């Protein structure tokens, strides 16, 4: 391919902004200047679907009403471990209004005794489904199904499950599908004893480094501590679910999903259909936080019921089912030992962790310890522990949120031991330039200089300040394609299967294309979330913006060049002399040659111009060829808290969140993502906790009032500092923010609580009970 050289902005405006020359493919558009000089990109532009959302016109999966549609409901196991002897559905089938009943049969090779039914491994496991005229009838029918269980002993608690005589969750290599925890986790079939799997000792950043023992021998100061985090379930407003209409022609699927293309692929595989015969649509999505990448068990169930009945089937699960079976962030018990020299230089990091993702895997927590700081000697051992509980799933920065809770408290402790300011220590050991700027600007905005010595706050209500930071890889999904077409009335349409899960993907796509075509964001129609269109990335790993906006711009550029060629021929000039600006196409030298964008295509050979582009490699290449870009998505967050030492009540007063994500595309949407990440971090630090009864295996607070998430009064003042950072990586040079926004908050709060009361809390959630106990106010 022909190449050319371009000069790109490089660095951080206001700090070290410079330029770099890169050789790029000729199909790549010219370099954009920094945001200040752009019109649509980098601005605070309203979501293009804001009106539809606030007026209730936006249709979510659960709103779908198709002619003749039936409602489906799952029967779920209410015992944690059993073999099923029989399932009697006759009463359910005879209930008027019931159209079909389907029993889940054994398809996996998990070595359970029963040949007919999968073994029951957790309360909430789906066993059968019913489709009926109404949801109430479906529910009643479910209650009429009789299951004859052969109950077995089970284990719920992580530490109990590690005992040699603990009941086994899987007695053979695991057949269970693993749904994303941390990268570098234990894999299916990995060796392990009892319920233990692992250890995992490496990630895509490599394995152990140096000699840890030697490193500790060189240390002047060592901190060693055990940190515990809870099981945290996903609580999106919209639960998991689908509406499926399987006709002889195709399977039409409305799905509440973070990944339309993957849901299509899974269903096509499952039912052995050509991918072209499965169409998945997700127009609007009510939150997923990592747990909605797959067709789950509800997809195959709804499809089967649709096939059996010849009618569309609605299957949305309810809040309790969501808690029990549709994912959680695994808990962790992490031991961390960090050594440093008197000047702060780290000499060794040794980490060991255990976590349970229930019947799933993915409880690793290692990446933060591995990459956040420079340290020549590093070792990690991460174990997954299987228990009889619902499977874990990716949860906004999987592994990192747990891992940061340990690492960033340990660094805080280290700073204190070294009599260094926590920021100064990080300036010493953190090589990231963008985080250096974030620390500087964040500290200024927060008023870090006002921070007092730990435990020195007077009175009953003690104030404290803390900070923590995080990193997140810049993942890029190369299989990210988008089509841009201009119709002959000048209207522009963007098409991709990529979905907007509420993060604002539709709007940033429109902004990027509008910028390229010299139009307004509102001029662009965005049709995404439909597998009829080119495959987009899944909304996970914060990949979307970095993966799909460059091809969107490239496709728009290609369309523009085709249009310029036609115009140039008509005007008898060179296409290189034309520009698109402010809704017009103009000749840069000849003011008489000028046409409104809307008019340009009229009377042309074809009624439309279209181009499809896919994500190209980063201009400077990747760290890993599959799409691990250079640099990271750094963040530094500051927390101010008040702790009532009489009641143990912790209030987060203020968070200052300094973040970077390459070239910011839409300031309002970025802030919205960061607000969300911070709020979930507050929630993780103080409120959310799965309560399991280990005598029955039931999840006791699987509802929306005793499983506590924050509401308006729990939400602190949130101030956001966005640091622009140019790295000349792609045609938009932009990355996501979803996950980075959530990593540092909880541990920044924990550090602030320590600063307030002078006692460290090593376990979250930080409840009144834990504070009072830490203050020695509880008589046992």
């Amino acid at each position, binding site marked *: 391919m022909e190449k050319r050289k371009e000069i790109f902005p490089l660095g951080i405006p206001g700090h070290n902004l410079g330029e770099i020359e890169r050789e790029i493919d000729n199909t790549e558009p010219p370099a954009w200047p920094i945001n200040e000089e752009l019109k649509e990109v980098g601005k605070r532009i309203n979501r293009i679907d804001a009106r539809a959302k606030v007026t209730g016109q936006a249709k979510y999966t659960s709103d779908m009403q198709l002619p003749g549609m039936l409602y489906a409901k799952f029967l779920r196991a209410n015992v944690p471990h059993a073999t099923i002897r029989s399932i009697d559905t006759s009463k359910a089938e005879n209930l008027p209004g019931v159209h079909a009943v389907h029993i889940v049969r054994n398809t996996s090779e998990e070595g359970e005794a029963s040949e007919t039914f999968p073994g029951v491994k957790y309360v909430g496991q789906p066993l059968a489904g019913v489709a009926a005229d109404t949801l109430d009838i479906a529910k009643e029918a479910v209650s009429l199904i009789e299951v004859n269980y052969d109950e077995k002993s089970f284990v719920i608690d992580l530490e109990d499950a590690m005992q040699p005589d603990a009941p086994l969750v899987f007695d053979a290599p695991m057949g269970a599908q693993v749904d994303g925890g941390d990268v570098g986790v234990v894999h299916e079939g990995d060796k392990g004893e009892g319920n233990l799997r692992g250890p995992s000792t490496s990630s895509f950043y490599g394995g152990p480094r140096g000699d840890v023992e030697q490193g500790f021998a060189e240390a002047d100061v060592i901190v060693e501590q055990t940190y515990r985090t809870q099981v945290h379930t996903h609580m999106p407003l919209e639960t998991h679910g689908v509406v499926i209409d399987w006709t002889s022609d195709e399977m039409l699927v409305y799905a509440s999903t973070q990944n339309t293309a993957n849901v299509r692929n899974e269903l096509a595989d499952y039912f052995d259909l050509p991918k072209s015969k499965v169409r998945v649509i997700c127009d609007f999505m009510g939150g997923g936080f990592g747990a909605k990448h797959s067709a789950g068990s509800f997809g195959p169930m709804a499809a089967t019921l649709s096939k059996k009945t010849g009618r569309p089937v609605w299957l949305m699960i309810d809040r309790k089912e969501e808690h029990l079976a549709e994912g959680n962030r695994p808990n962790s018990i992490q031991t961390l030992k960090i050594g440093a020299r008197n000047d702060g230089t780290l000499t060794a990091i040794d980490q060991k962790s255990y976590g349970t993702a229930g019947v799933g895997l993915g409880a690793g927590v290692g990446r933060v310890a591995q990459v956040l700081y420079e340290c020549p000697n590093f070792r990690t051992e991460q174990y997954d522990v299987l228990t009889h509980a619902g499977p874990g799933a990716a949860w906004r920065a999987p592994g990192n949120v747990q891992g940061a809770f340990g690492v960033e408290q340990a660094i805080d402790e280290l700073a204190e031991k070294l009599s260094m300011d926590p920021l100064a220590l990080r300036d010493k050991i953190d090589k990231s330039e963008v985080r250096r700027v974030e620390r500087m600007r964040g500290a200024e905005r927060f008023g870090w200089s006002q921070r007092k010595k730990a435990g020195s706050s007077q009175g009953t209500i003690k104030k404290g300040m803390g900070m923590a930071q995080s990193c997140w890889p810049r993942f890029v999904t190369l299989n990210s394609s988008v089509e841009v077409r201009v119709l002959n009335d000048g209207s522009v349409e963007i098409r991709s299967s990529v979905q907007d899960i509420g993060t604002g993907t539709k709007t940033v796509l429109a902004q990027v294309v509008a910028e390229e075509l010299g139009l307004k964001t509102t001029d662009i129609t965005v049709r995404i979330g439909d597998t009829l269109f080119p495959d987009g990335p899944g909304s996970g790993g914060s990949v979307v913006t970095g993966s799909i906006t460059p091809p969107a711009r490239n496709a728009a550029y290609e369309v523009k060049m085709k249009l310029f060629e036609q115009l140039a021929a008509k005007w008898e000039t060179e296409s290189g002399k034309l520009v698109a600006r402010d809704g017009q196409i103009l000749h840069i030298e000849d003011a008489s040659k000028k046409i409104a964008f809307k008019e340009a295509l009229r009377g042309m050979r074809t009624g439309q111009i279209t181009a499809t582009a896919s994500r190209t490699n980063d201009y400077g290449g990747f760290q890993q060829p599959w799409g691990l870009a250079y640099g990271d998505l750094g963040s530094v967050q500051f927390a101010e808290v008040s702790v009532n030492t*009489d*009641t143990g*009540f912790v209030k987060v007063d203020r968070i200052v969140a300094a973040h970077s994500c390459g070239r910011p595309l839409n300031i309002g949407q970025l802030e919205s993502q960061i607000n969300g990440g911070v709020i979930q971090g507050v929630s993780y630090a103080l409120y959310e906790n799965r309560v399991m009864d280990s005598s*029955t295996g*039931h999840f006791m607070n699987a509802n929306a009032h005793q499983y506590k998430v924050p509401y308006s009064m*729990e939400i602190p003042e949130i101030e956001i500092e966005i640091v622009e950072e140019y790295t000349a990586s792609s045609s938009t040079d932009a990355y996501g923010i979803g996950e980075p926004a959530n990593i540092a908050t909880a541990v920044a709060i924990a550090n602030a609580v320590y600063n307030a009361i002078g006692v460290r809390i090593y376990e979250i959630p930080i409840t*009144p009970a834990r504070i009072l106990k830490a203050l020695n*106010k509880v008589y*046992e």
Partner: protein
Amino acid sequence: MNKFSWYEAKSVEDAIEQANSTVSEEIYTPTGKASIYKSGGIDVWDMVKEGLIAPQMIVNVRNIKGLDKMSFDPDSGLSIGANVTLTEIEQSPEVSEHYTALQQAVAHAATPQLRNMSTLAGNLAQRTRCWYFRSADHPCMRKGGDRCYARSQQTGQNENHAILDNGSCVSLHASSVATALLAYEASIVYLDAKGESHEVPIEDFFVSPSQDIWRENILSPGDLITEIKVPTPSSGTRSHYVKQVARESYDWSLADVAVVAKMNGNKCEKITIALGAAAPTPVRAYRAEEALINQVINKESAKLAGETAMASARPLTMNGYKVPLFLTTISQALLEIA
């Protein structure tokens, strides 16, 4: 949810007649059967949806005329009709003027939306929120089983549960409004199956599981609350209510305290202290009250009162923190009226 029929009661007589002449599967009462009343429906629907009750008929009392009246008379006190909503109580100028602690308690109960729907009778007759009781999969003592899951030394998830009177079922009464009503020595007026009216002090209205595991109050199925009476506080009365929660926006209480005291100068002439979320019923802290009579309320006496109230506390495995929490809360409420 099962199918049920619906009866729209026109009068209290009509309601009693319907409820008592039809039989519903009432909740865990070996004592008698009748159809269940529904007022605001917050708790009734929760129970139905959780599969804890499967009524064949629901008698809606929400629209009965006359049950939604509230009035205040300096001689006879405050009269609150069974169907008066928590929002109406919260916003009543008379309640704000004469019954500070009641107003505070109501304003801190549940959420604004729930308070718009919730009636006072329904609030007092709601069932416990113990998560074991609320789970159809846990046949606890209150549901005819033989164990209290929450009390288990090894596995009981009892961080919220009772620290007083917890020798039997260790659940908490769910109403935090009742705490304030107890401190005001309110009484409950109800009609029995025969239509006869009874008035009981609120303290006798609630029944401890150690007395009768089947019930949380003295109502038999089919009994209908018509009115809640709250005596007029004598002049010089001050009152205050404090609720401790894990989550401020709305939450079930971890500890709540109402105090109503008649002060003579800076001395306490008469005082009632009621504790919510301490025991399976709202309870009075009598010994603490006694300790304060003719005393000046100050830091020391308030602290001592708290300690006296907590002297008989027997925390379970996970709720030891509730003892210091009550100590603080009692002191805080007392110092507010000092």
